[in-house]
């Protein structure tokens, strides 16, 4: 039994090393790819613009729930006016980056993994190699950078929509004073909080995009292989996101 445990441990270590090595390869190839920005631009559209609907909807509902729950909780202490502060800090520091990242992994991450996995399974990547076109530069790095750029933007949009959702519930429906909502928020929320949120969403962007393109690129070239790559993407991304969340929160304290 111990032998199996040890084997899975060394397998995991090997996998981690492989992923890090892949990340370096992507970074090294990035400058060249940035010169062909239209490739990246297309991927920003695929990962970002196409995820907008789910991000906006989720942001709205999460914000509204925050407004409701926050209002009920603060009411017990007679501090309803602090709803703006509570909602904004909750969204900007935690919910915005984390929920967006999880949704991103589910929508954009799986799309990236399955696209690359399919290319692997139908020999398109090998064909490119044979045509002396580096598939890493042509296909993988644009997708990676597209995800990295799209994530912080999506998280910001999520937070903003969320704040408005909280405001909708708190001010319009529950009767919190609009002036207090915004002024208390402005005095209590600091730039450090917002920076923490941006740093998180950037880190999540790198992690999710890396995991997605890695799983797709190294997928077993069969139909089941592609399927496994997509599920692995979501699962691994979720765990890494939550782990990084703790690390970054602690680092900012």
């Amino acid at each position, binding site marked *: 039994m111990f032998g199996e445990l040890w084997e899975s441990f060394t397998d995991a270590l090997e996998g981690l090393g492989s992923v890090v090595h892949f990340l370096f390869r992507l970074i090294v190839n990035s400058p060249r790819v940035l010169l062909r920005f*239209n490739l990246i631009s297309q991927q920003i*559209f695929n990962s*970002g613009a196409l995820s907008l609907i789910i991000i906006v909807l989720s942001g709205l509902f999460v914000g509204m729930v925050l407004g409701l729950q926050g209002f009920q909780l603060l009411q017990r202490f007679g501090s309803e006016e602090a709803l703006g502060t509570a909602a904004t800090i909750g969204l900007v520091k935690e919910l915005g980056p984390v929920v967006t990242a999880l949704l991103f992994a589910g929508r954009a991450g799986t799309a990236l993994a399955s696209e690359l996995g399919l290319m692997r399974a139908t020999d398109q990547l090998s064909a490119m190699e044979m045509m002396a076109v580096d598939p890493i530069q042509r296909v993988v790095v644009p997708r990676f950078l597209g995800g990295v750029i799209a994530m912080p*933007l999506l998280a910001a*949009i999520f*937070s903003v929509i969320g704040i408005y959702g909280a405001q909708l519930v708190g001010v319009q429906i529950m009767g919190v004073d609009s002036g207090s909502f915004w002024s208390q928020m402005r*005095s209590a*929320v600091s*730039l450090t909080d917002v920076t923490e*949120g941006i740093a998180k969403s950037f880190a999540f962007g790198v992690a999710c995009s890396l995991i997605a393109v890695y799983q797709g690129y190294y997928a077993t070239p069969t139909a089941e292989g592609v399927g496994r790559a997509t599920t692995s993407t979501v699962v691994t991304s979720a765990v890494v996101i939550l782990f990084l969340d703790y690390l970054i929160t602690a680092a900012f304290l």
Partner: protein
Amino acid sequence: MRKSRTLNLGTGSFVLLGFAALFFLTTQTTSRGLSIFGPARYEVTAKFDNIGDLKVGAPVSMSGVEVGRVAKIDFDSNEYKAVVLLRLNQRFNKIPTDSDASIYTQGLLGGKFIGLTAGGADTYLKDKGQIDFTQSAFVLENLIGQVLANFTKSKADSLSPADATPRATEKTK
């Protein structure tokens, strides 16, 4: 190629939206906004015996108007005093050099802030200046200690006349 036109439009709109959201978050939700692009500031120091729980970032106000923030809190091990660095908005540059800085409490049990009261000098505070007149924070425990001390002292006073009289009559015998 027509496809790429709508594509670029879509990407551009998305990126614009994203940056607008980022801009909103950094400027509309925080009070300091983008301090890198903010108004010019100058810094003065003030030394206190006790700053209580004054924190970095606490407001500095004059007549109730916020004129700056606490930028740094340090300790002077020669004079055994707290050294507070105040970062003031350049707009308020007519603060007399003999003004005093006191530490007040927001509301009843809120955080501490620094209040400046104008002096009468003709010269004004400039960058790297120092405020000489300071008043330390109000510490609740000291007040309670004082009240108790006064209370026991007045109790002792109210008992002494009765004790003193027999001794006086003895002396006159």
